[in-house]
Each structure stands twice: as structure tokens, then as C-alpha cells.
């Protein structure tokens, strides 16, 4: 195979711990009550269309996009809307959401629930994008950027490559891995649909080398298809980052503060490719997703196909309960995920995993002074200086943080992972990004 490709700058290789990689995707039972937050995507929250007391069917439109960068939200279950109220979300804050009491499992009539593979792509590019937009698709890797926005390159820009992200570089998580093994043909059709929508001739599926069976499986599937290849990649975190993946696969560098389309690339997650297949071929909006429930103390690490709005305690029960010495519950992976404050937090479009950490693993070392070892700078995949940026945002020097390109930070956490002084660098960087982002938005308004 020769030397495997990877990205150029920085990166770390944390313990992989893919405990659930052999657990087949299981369909999770319907929740009693589905909690559907209205802000499930990057950008503006959606506007509710239903009222209290309305009967809804699964797949029915619940809320429409509240702006350009926003998405539709569909009912993940059938039943009665009992409340539109503030519900707790992954950050511990209460934000508006729709609560549905589940009654039966009735779907809208025009949704095809059969599992037959449908390879014929009937729609043309524009209709595909419209369909994806209406189905409320977002990037399933976790960033939840509305998919249709990525499929509409700004005038003058042309996509050359479609890169399908099957990297799954976060330790522990296996939802994309399982999806590739079990829904490979669907992902390939989804990729073809995306190629048609973007009018590109080449698609590359990037998969890290720690998933040999997935690489093999996908390679077999793409053999008969023109322009589609599978690219095995060296295991390196954060290869699943858009810009890192582009560098690794086609050796192009996305300029600072620019989108991948600048270098002729569009990146979509394998989960998104599968959702695209379902939306376009089966007319099924995004109402369920695969969530990995894992952790060293978890009795049965699983990959669960859960409806959006299912409270996470139900997922943990499906993995045979909360281990006794759980110290932290993390929404997402160990590197980028956020600790959850409640077990009532629902599954949303961007939930890729739930990680239950043991008490002894979850302890955070006390912060020590920076020893200027420059490890954080070495591992930063964006070529930033985390020690400087964290100091700037800690001291409120947001102008300095901005000029040092804090907004380029992808929040991968490599710096904090490697810091020998246990400085919560990512915490400070996130604060700085928050503030600088707000400052920049306000500047745009005035």
C-alpha cells in the first residue's frame, strides 16, 4: 500500500478505543415522549409550524427553516404535540423545543419505508438540492451545517471533487464505521446523488486505516462506478476535519476563513450521504440517526438507530444501563464532545455518540503554569498558537485573538490533549471564538 496519506500539519493519535466497532446497528424502541429542540443546526433556529394539541405523523414538517443557514425539522415520531416550551439541550441551557407524546408509529403516506435498494436517480441536480433542503439535512459528523448550502457553490466557483468523510477520527465513535459496513450500497448511491447535484466527476471516500473491513467493503462497492474511489488514510486525529481531509486526500490547502469550495472541494459525511439517499430515493426526511453508546465501563457498547428527540437515558438503558462509577457523560467523542448536564437531553441531528467515562478517567488535572514547551503549537492542525490565543481570550484581548486567527480554530482539542501543564486551552479558545464571532457579527451589522 505504500505510505498512507494524511494531512500535513500537527495532529495527535489518541488511544482509539473503538469498543463498539463489532456491534451491529440496532433499532432503538420508540421513546414515550420525543423532545425535539428547534435549534439543531449551525445557524438560525427553526420556526415551529405546529401548535399545542396538534396530531402529527412521523415525517411531517414540524418547523421550517428560520433563515438562509437553517433547516426544516420533521416529526420523528407520530403522536400529539403536548407542549412548545423550553427544553434542556446539550449545553445545559434551556432552549425552545417541541415535545411530542408518542402514539403508535404512523408515517406520512408518501414516505417509502421499504429497505429495497433503489439505484436509479430520477431527479435532476436542482430537484435533488430542493429535496435535500426540504428534508432538513445537516452535516451528520457533528458540525450540523445545513447540507443544501454546501451543494450550492457561490457563483463563479466550481466543485471538482466530492469528498465523502468516512474518517471517524474521534476515538470511541463507530457510528460511521458501522454505517459503511451495513449500508454501503446506500452510501454509494447517496454519493452518486451528491455528485449529480454538484455536477462533479470525481468522488473520493476517505477512510482511516483502522477500519480495514470498511475500506475493503467500500472498495468492492465502488469498483463498477466511474469516478468514485476509496482513499485509505493514515490514522491521525483530527483527519475528519474538513480542511484536514481535503489536505490529506487531494493535497490542497483551504485558505484561512474560506470554505472548501475555494479549492474546488465539497466534503460530506458518510452519514450525510446515507441521509441523502433516504431523502432523495425514499422521500424520508432526517428523523433518525445512528448513535454510538460507548465507554470502558459500559456493559454493551452499541450502535443504535435512534429517532431524533429520544432522551439519552433510553439509549444508555439500551446499552445495559449506566455503569456505577460513571464520572462524566459526554455528548460526542472524547476530543470534541461536551459533557452533558442531564440525562433528559435528547438525541439531535448532530449527536454522533454518547460516551460514558469512568470517574478515574474523567478527572481533570488542575491547571499549571505554561512552561512554553510549544507542544500545542506543534500539534495544532491549523497552524495556530493555542497558548497565545488562550491567553488572549483569558485576558479579554479579543482584537489580538482575532488578528492571530482564532476563528480558524476547529476546536479539535489536540492542544489541550497534549498540554503537559493541563491548561484548559480549548475552553479558553472556545470562549475566545464565541466572543470574537459576536464582535465580528456586530461589526457586520453596523
Amino acid at each position, binding site marked *: 500500500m505504500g505510505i498512507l496519506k494524511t494531512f500535513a500539519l500537527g495532529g495527535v493519535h489518541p488511544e482509539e478505543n473503538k469498543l463498539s466497532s463489532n456491534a451491529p446497528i440496532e433499532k432503538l424502541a420508540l421513546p414515550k415522549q420525543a423532545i425535539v429542540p428547534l435549534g439543531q443546526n449551525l445557524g438560525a433556529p427553526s420556526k415551529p409550524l405546529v401548535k399545542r394539541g396538534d396530531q402529527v405523523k412521523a415525517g411531517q414538517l414540524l418547523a421550517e427553516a428560520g433563515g438562509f443557514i437553517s433547516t426544516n425539522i420533521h416529526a420523528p415520531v407520530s403522536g400529539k404535540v403536548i407542549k412548545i416550551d*423550553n427544553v*434542556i439541550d446539550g*449545553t*445545559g*441551557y*434551556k432552549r425552545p423545543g417541541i415535545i411530542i407524546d408518542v402514539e403508535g408509529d404512523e408515517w406520512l403516506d408518501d414516505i417509502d419505508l421499504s429497505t429495497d435498494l433503489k439505484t436509479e436517480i430520477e431527479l435532476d441536480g436542482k430537484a435533488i438540492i430542493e429535496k435535500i433542503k426540504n428534508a432538513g439535512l445537516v452535516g451528520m459528523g457533528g458540525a450540523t451545517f445545513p447540507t443544501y448550502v454546501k451543494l450550492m457553490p457561490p457563483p463563479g466557483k466550481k466543485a471538482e471533487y466530492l469528498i465523502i468523510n468516512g474518517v471517524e477520527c474521534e476515538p470511541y465513535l463507530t457510528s460511521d464505521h458501522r454505517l459503511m459496513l451495513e449500508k454501503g450500497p446506500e452510501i454509494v448511491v447517496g454519493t452518486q446523488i451528491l455528485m449529480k447535484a454538484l455536477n462533479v466527476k470525481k468522488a473520493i471516500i476517505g477512510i482511516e486505516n483502522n477500519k480495514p473491513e470498511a475500506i475493503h467493503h467500500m472498495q468492492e462497492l465502488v469498483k463498477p462506478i466511474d469516478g468514485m474511489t476509496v482513499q485509505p488514510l493514515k490514522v491521525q486525529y483530527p483527519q475528519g476535519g474538513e480542511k484536514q481531509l481535503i489536505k490529506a486526500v487531494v493535497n490542497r490547502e483551504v485558505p484561512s476563513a474560506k470554505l472548501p469550495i475555494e479549492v474546488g472541494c465539497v466534503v460530506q459525511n458518510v452519514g450525510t450521504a446515507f441521509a441523502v439517499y433516504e431523502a432523495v430515493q425514499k422521500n424520508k426526511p432526517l428523523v433518525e440517526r445512528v448513535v454510538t453508546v460507548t465507554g470502558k465501563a459500559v456493559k454493551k457498547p452499541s450502535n443504535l438507530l435512534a429517532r431524533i428527540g429520544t432522551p439519552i437515558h433510553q439509549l444508555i438503558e439500551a446499552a445495559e444501563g449506566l455503569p456505577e462509577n460513571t464520572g462524566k457523560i459526554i455528548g460526542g467523542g472524547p476530543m470534541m464532545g*461536551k*459533557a452533558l*448536564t*442531564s440525562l433528559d437531553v435528547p438525541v439531535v441531528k448532530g449527536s454522533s455518540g454518547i460516551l460514558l467515562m469512568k470517574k478515574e478517567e474523567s*478527572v*481533570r488535572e488542575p*491547571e499549571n503554569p505554561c512552561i512554553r514547551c510549544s507542544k500545542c503549537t506543534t500539534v495544532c492542525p491549523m497552524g495556530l498558537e493555542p497558548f497565545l490565543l488562550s491567553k488572549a481570550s*483569558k485576558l479579554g484581548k479579543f482584537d489580538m485573538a482575532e488578528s492571530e486567527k482564532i476563528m480558524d480554530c476547529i476546536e479539535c482539542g489536540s492542544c489541550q490533549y497534549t498540554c503537559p501543564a493541563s491548561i*484548559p486551552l480549548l*475552553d*479558553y479558545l*472556545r*470562549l475566545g471564538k*464565541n*466572543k470574537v464571532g459576536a464582535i465580528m457579527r456586530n461589526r457586520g451589522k453596523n
Partner: protein
Amino acid sequence: MDNIVIIAIAALGSLGLVAAVILYFVASKFKVYEDPKIDEVEEALPAANCGGCGFPGCRAFAEATTTSARKNKNLDGLNCPVGGNDVMQSVGSILGLEVEATDPLIAVIRCNGSIKNTPAKVKYEGATSCAFAHALYGGEGGCQFGCLGLADCVDACDFDAIHMNPETGLPVVNDKCTACGACVEACPRDIIELRKKGPKDRRIFVSCVNKEKGAPAKKNCAVACIGCAKCDKVCKFDAITINSFLAYIDFSKCTLCRKCVEVCPTEAIWEVNFKPRKPKEGKAPKPVAEKTVAKENAPTAKVEAGKAPDNETTE
């Protein structure tokens, strides 16, 4: 030998002389007139350079006052909260203007979510800064409006006027507070408010900023304002407004009658520095407080009318 000394003195002396002549003309040509009053005013200011007036430092405030006095013949909107009335009076006398006395303000912590009242449901580990904690999560006790207890306000204070109480986990303001507003800005949750210090340091305020409905608010915190509006009904002076299930007492209308404190079911309304009430007949200390209000703040007849019944009972 002598010769060298003389030449040196003559050369340097003439050089100095030429330079002095040039400098004299340059200085008079490029002279910038600066009002000497600016220096005088600056002298009278506390030199804390805290920015509480809204200007970057005392010098800038002195310039602003002098300009305002020259152009507008008044000092409207200009106030040094640190110096208070005394300093503003002396500034006024320097500038030859009458300055109206303003009520001194003090920072007030509008949260009573102590460790006891809002027991922690989760434990937060991370950067020890309220700004960050606020950006990331909703609060240990589940109240997403309340104090995070990580002391950003203490760090912001230049006057040693605010400290954390380790027992309650809440900040406490002492009388060194100059109402410069640094803590107000530092608090990411807008808990701290500058309120009128009040006569004899007596003040009444709603010690809560929770905008949730009653039930969820109460669930997280025993002493949260639940928006029941009992205080609004009992207030005769229209001082209380209720917005998003949260009461707010307008300190310019409040007469410190303490009726709202009595009716509040969650004890979210606080009275500070009042004498303790005696049971039942104990309305004795109350009129004392009210009289001082009437005298010092000289509000309107409305106040007199409002407190009349109380006066009758005591006299």
C-alpha cells in the same frame, strides 16, 4: 589649555542659544491651547482611572466636563461615581456651575442561589472563569440565569469591594463599592446591578434574575422569583414591573415601604440594613425608614400619601 575651555564653552553656549531661539519660535508657532481648568478638574478627581464615568481615565473625564461646561453650560450626563457628590460639587465650583446632587449608587448582587438554595446537580470542571462557564453550560444547580460563583466580578473590582463568600458561593459587596460598574460589565449573566444606595444604606431589591416560569424556576432554586405578581399588587407606588416572570423594583419609585418583602412567597425580595421587624405590632421601625426616604430623596407628595396610614398607626 584655557583656550580649549573657552572655545568649548563658547561653542556649546552659542549652540544652545541658537537651539533655544529655534525652540522658542517653534513652541509659539505650534502652541496648543489647553484649558487650565482641565488640570484643576483632574486634580479634584479621585485619580482612580476606573472608567466608571464612561471615559478612559480621569483626564478624559476632566476634558469632557470642561468641554461640556464651555459649550453647554451644564454637566448633564457626566458623573464621577467614585467621587460621588462631593467631588462633583468641587468640579462644579471649579467650572463655575451648579451641580445637582445625585443619589449614590452601589452594586447589588441579584441572585440568592447559594450552595444551599440551589444544590449542585452536576460538577463543573474547567476554566475558572464565569465568562467561560456561561458560554458552555447552564449552571451547576440547573439555573441558567443565576450566579456561577467563579468570581469574575471579584477580579474586575479595582476597589477591593467585592468578595466571594465561601459559605454561600456568592459574591458579597462591601461599602468600599464606588459604583464604577466594572463588575456589572464583568458578569456574563447580568446579575449585578447598580442601584441607589438608599438612605441609611437601606434598599429593597429583587434578588433574582430568573426569567423562567414559576414551576421550573422554583424547582431549581428555592428562593427564585416565580413571577406571582403578589408584590406588584401590594405596591402602591407602581414601582414593581413584571417581565418574563420576573419582578423588578424601580428604585426611583420605591419608597422602601417593605410591603412587597412581606408578601413575597419565596423570599426573593430582599431588604437590606433595615431594623428587624417586631412580630405583629412591630411596625415601629418602619416609619423611621420612610421618613428618611421622604427627607433625603425628597420625592413627591405621592410618598407622603402612601405612608400616611403607617404614620397614623404609630403616632
